[in-house]
């Protein structure tokens, strides 16, 4: 039994503690230490990439399993494992965090040690959520991720940060308490004195542990509540714009980049696996909510004057696609959904970085305050054009690959059907509308005296964007290795849910 | 041989008087005395039952109650003195700074 996963999960927290308690670390040094530490974590997570021998893409089951009894009385194990579904999200987390820390170099200068510590602690939380296979352990990590984010927004946020962060915390927390209820219910109903998800699934599959239909649906809804708020699915999204507008740039990037994906991941890992029948039952309804989210998010984004709010609503729209992909309940849809979660992390993360850069220069997020950036900051505008295009879903970039696969999945899924794909595609048009509208208002136009003397992108900012853009283009042109790594797990999962592709 | 019910009834009566004393009077000391009275009524009931069941435990308990009551009075009065020093009053209603 190797310890790679535990190393990956707990290393960041160790770094956080060091940063907090080690004596005599100046702000300047704290940033460097945090950066190096997060790079070490990223290096530790690299062996997970298929081809390094640790992760075998041809096996669908959980791999690199680490299981140690923890709380004997309730049968709670410290149980970590990874499979095709969570692989890329883990790598996205370890890949994004160094970039996020890099972005704090010139944007955060008050209480830097605490900021970096919270960021690393957050990383531990997120990795824990992605790797935990024990329901109890999962819940602990799930709630733990809220705490650092609460402080990140609460302390370093904008003017209305208190309202935003309290709303964020309470909204997510209230929903996840329902999930805790469901977890306990499962534990009691199963009666095998264990919270282990794989064992529970085996018991279900072999018929030892059967849930009657209505109860399964209620439990599905309990899990649904927690994850829908996190994703956010349409009616539960009202915390996101506030959280994003008030969060510091680094906070926004990590929030959009990874935190939102935990909801989507949760749906796949728990809702689909534990309650296949309920998933089939609720798929059309959730599909409708997703489609509304796509169009609604895009539509509102168009009317925003605050850039960050615009990008926040665009996240609501993009994640509507992910939900559509998940609840297509077929291999293609799931492939698309998982890849789109990674893509969204990259594109929207980069978009927030870009927005952060002009915020650092002008200290305002109002779109009308900008104009003519293309002339003043050509390199910056070229990079942001690429990022905007990836968010719009232009082919040859990563957004398109994810969205197209989801559309194929949704179109041919017996539970959704062509209407969902059609309305989903409307979202693609609207995405072009509001993003290009923003691009025109900010980048094109004539140079105002305020934007005349803005300096172009610095080397530091370049090092932040280049890795993201490299991946955006790579996934756009050659996504096959990403798909192949999750192929087995996703197909196994889709078959377990029931009839996959509609009869041709 | 006076039946125990009478004693218990008497004890209840005394207890109720004590309670009304606590509720109605506003002088802290009188309230305090009413509390003592309630304790006493409880003791009476205890001893009554001790005789009834022919068991000494009731009386032992009463004994302990008395000692505790003594301790309580000591501390209580010290508190009252403390309050009087700062508030210049022993009227219970004037001391209502702990308003919600």
């Amino acid at each position, binding site marked *: 039994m190797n310890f790679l996963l535990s190393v990956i999960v707990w290393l960041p927290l160790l770094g956080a503690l060091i940063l907090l308690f080690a004596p005599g670390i100046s702000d300047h040094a704290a940033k460097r230490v945090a950066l190096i530490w997060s790079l070490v974590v990223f290096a530790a997570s690299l062996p997970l990439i298929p081809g390094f021998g640790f992760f075998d893409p041809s096996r669908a089951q959980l791999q690199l399993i680490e299981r140690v009894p923890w709380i004997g009385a309730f049968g709670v194990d410290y149980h970590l494992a990874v499979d095709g579904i969570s692989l890329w999200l883990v790598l996205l987390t370890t890949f994004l965090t160094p970039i996020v820390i890099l972005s704090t170099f010139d944007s955060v200068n008050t209480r830097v040690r605490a900021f970096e510590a919270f960021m690393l602690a957050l990383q531990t939380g997120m990795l824990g959520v992605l790797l935990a296979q024990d329901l109890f352990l999962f819940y602990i990590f799930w709630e733990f991720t809220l705490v650092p984010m609460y402080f990140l927004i609460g302390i370093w946020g904008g003017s209305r940060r208190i309202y935003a962060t309290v*709303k964020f915390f*309470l*909204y997510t927390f209230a929903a996840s308490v329902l999930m805790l209820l469901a977890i306990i219910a499962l534990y009691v109903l199963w009666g095998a004195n264990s919270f282990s998800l794989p064992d529970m699934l085996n018991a279900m599959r072999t018929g030892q542990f059967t849930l009657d239909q209505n109860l399964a649906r209620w439990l599905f809804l309990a899990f649904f509540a927690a994850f829908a708020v996190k994703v956010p699915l349409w*009616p539960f*999204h*009202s915390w996101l714009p506030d959280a994003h507008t008030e969060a510091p740039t680094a906070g926004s990037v990590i929030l959009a980049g990874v935190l939102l994906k935990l909801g989507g991941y949760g749906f796949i890992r728990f809702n689909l696996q534990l309650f296949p029948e309920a998933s089939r039952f609720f798929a059309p309804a959730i599909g409708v909510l997703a489609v509304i989210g796509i169009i*609604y998010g895009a*539509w*509102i984004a168009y*009317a925003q004057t605050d850039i960050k709010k615009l990008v926040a609503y665009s996240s609501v729209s993009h994640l509507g696609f992910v939900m559509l992909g998940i609840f297509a309940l077929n*291999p*293609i849809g799931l*492939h698309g959904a998982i*890849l789109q979660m990674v893509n969204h992390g990259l594109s929207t993360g980069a978009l927030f970085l870009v927005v952060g850069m002009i915020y650092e220069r002008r200290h305002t997020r109002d779109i009308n305050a900008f104009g*003519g950036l*293309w002339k003043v900051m050509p390199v910056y505008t070229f990079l942001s054009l690429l990022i905007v*295009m990836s968010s719009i879903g*232009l*082919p*040859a970039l990563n957004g*398109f690959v994810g969205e*197209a*696969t989801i*559309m*194929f*999945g949704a*179109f*041919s899924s017996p539970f959704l059907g*062509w209407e969902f*794909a059609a309305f989903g*595609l*409307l979202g*693609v*048009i609207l995405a*072009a509308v509001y993003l*290009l*509208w923003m691009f*025109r208002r900010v*980048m094109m*136009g*004539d140079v105002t005296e305020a934007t005349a003397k803005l300096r172009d992108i610095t080397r530091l900012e370049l090092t932040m964007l280049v890795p993201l853009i490299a991946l955006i283009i790579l996934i756009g*042109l*050659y996504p*096959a290795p990403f*798909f*192949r790594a999750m*192929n087995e797990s*996703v*197909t196994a999962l889709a078959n377990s849910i029931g009839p996959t*592709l*509609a009869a*041709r | 041989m006076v039946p125990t019910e009478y004693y218990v009834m008497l004890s209840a009566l005394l207890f109720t008087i004590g*309670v009304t004393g606590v*509720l109605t009077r*506003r002088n802290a000391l009188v309230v305090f005395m009413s509390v003592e009275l309630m304790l006493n009524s409880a003791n009476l009931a205890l001893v009554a039952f001790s005789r009834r069941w022919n068991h000494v435990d009731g009386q032992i308990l009463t004994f302990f109650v008395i000692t505790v009551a003594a301790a309580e009075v000591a501390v209580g009065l010290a508190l009252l003195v403390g309050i009087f020093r700062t508030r210049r009053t022993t009227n*219970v209603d004037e001391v*209502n*700074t*702990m308003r*919600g």
Partner: protein
Amino acid sequence: MEELLFTLIPAIIVLPLIGALINMFAIRDGRRAGLIASAACVASFVVGLTAFILLAGLPHEERTHVDVTLWQWIDAGPLQVPFGFLFDPLSAVMVLLITGVGSLIHVFSIGYMAHDARPVRYFVYLNLFVAAMLILVLANNYLLLFLGWEGVGLCSYLLIGHSFERKEARYASMKAFVMNRIGDFGLMLAILALFQRFGSLNYGVIFPRAGELVGQQIDWVLGPTAVASAIAFCMLIGVTGKSAQIPLWTWLPDAMAGPTPASALIHAATMVTSGVYLIVRSHAIFILTPSVSNTTVYIGVATAFIAASIAIGQYDIKRVLAFSTVSQLGFMVAAAGMGAYTAAIFHLLTHGVFKALLFLGAGSVIHGAHDVQDMRRMGGLRTAMPATFWTYLAGTAALAGIFPMAGFWSKDEIVGSAFHGTRFGTYPVVGTILIITAALTAFYMTRQVSLVFLGRQRDTSYHAHESEGIMTIPLWILAAGSLIVGLINIPGFYFLEHWLEPVFEVAHAVGEPLPFSFTLAIITVALALGAAFIAYQVYANRQWKKTFRDPLTRYLGVFFEGFEHRWYADDVYEAMFVRPFKATASFLSRIFDPMGIDGLVNGAARLVGLGGRGYRVLQTGYIRSYTLVFLMGVVAVLGYFGFATVR
């Protein structure tokens, strides 16, 4: 020989890409960037030509098997999409047009963009555009075609918005991209349906099995419709978006805000024709649905006629050509709809050449007249710009369909197929409308020539001069081209017809070549010449002031007003779509989201707050009230136990 072909095809696309990358990262100077870009395009043309020759060398039936896959693009379980190219006769011809005309336009641009603010960026976009268009034409599956499809949309967005200082350029670029996107919505839906029906998107899989679609029905809100019709109709939406047909055509005239050579390449020769290419490429599906094919014909004809009528009322030199392009595209779409696929491709090729010539000519005029675009301020430029004048005249003759020029042969073939009839039957009404439109074309082109070149120079505030050699040489080449290109499908030999046969054999859609009818030819030429003569009389030798009223207003009155305002299409779209969209957006963001959804959340929070305030009343601070509560509790408990146990 087979392997050589396999290596050449990717090279065609890679060369412009390399040119773009070099310019993007290494080059700062405009002229040098122009040279590199043109070199890349010419190289691509040369490679394309050799590939064309090699393909011609292959035996007849092997010409559609040249299919090379570079790598597996999407590999998501059942969804397998290769990144592969197909070099068959149809795409070969398209490649030649794109790279050939493209190269000439690149060379022309060197001169034209000499004093532009950001020439390097312009050449990067131009090269990227050629690469994207080549991907579109060479793709061997629909998803890769879609990649090229949106790629050219992006490049047109960038090129239109090149000089973004100007307000109309900024708005036009976004309008173009969004309207293309609406078309792409339809195409994507068709692609999704194709995948669901065939499990793959490769042409090699879909077209041979296209027959399976017959009889398959889907029922939806408008009742049961054939799957083939649904797919074809969705494709048609894509075509109207990209080839600027009704209803999605208003973006093309505004796209004239971009640099003129860019308009020549994109909005005349290549991008807008990709819609026609799509129909011809997917003929196996369109054949199955006479209903959708007929709709295509009617859309094409209607667009042709309306656009021609609008062109008559325009004063901007480029706008006239823009509407002329929309009209000629209408011809091609009608031909493709009728099933006369070879005629459509033939007209596409000839139009590509002479419309590029006209646009470059217009570019040369604007260049010479110091960026004046309003024809009312021109006049008498033939003396100042002889070369431009004569080449422009050749282009006009070709467009009007005068005898020896290319336009005559291709337009005549379309009109001929309308009367002679194809697999779906004859279209007499369509034929007559097309002939009238041809006459209108002759009219507005002669109007333009006489307004620009004949008569006296009305606005003398500028001194017009001829463009230098680097711009006029491409004009002469294109002028020669607009004569020679007509011969490739000259009746009797029908080279193009035979060349494209293998492409249509797959779905056995090969019709026998159209017999040439003299009567029809004479009628069309006579009408064209007549219309030209009328235009000459009305416009050529009148002495107007700079801001004259077009004489036609007297004859046509309100109609002319309608033509001039593009039949008020823009205002209708603005009122029907754009304004409601903005209104709803602001409603949602200002009222619904904050009050509605957020309201619920904050409402819940406020409720809890109120509850809390309610309880505070109980904390009175009086010790005695607390003891009272104690007592109540005691009484309640005693009471309960006292009485409950009894019952």
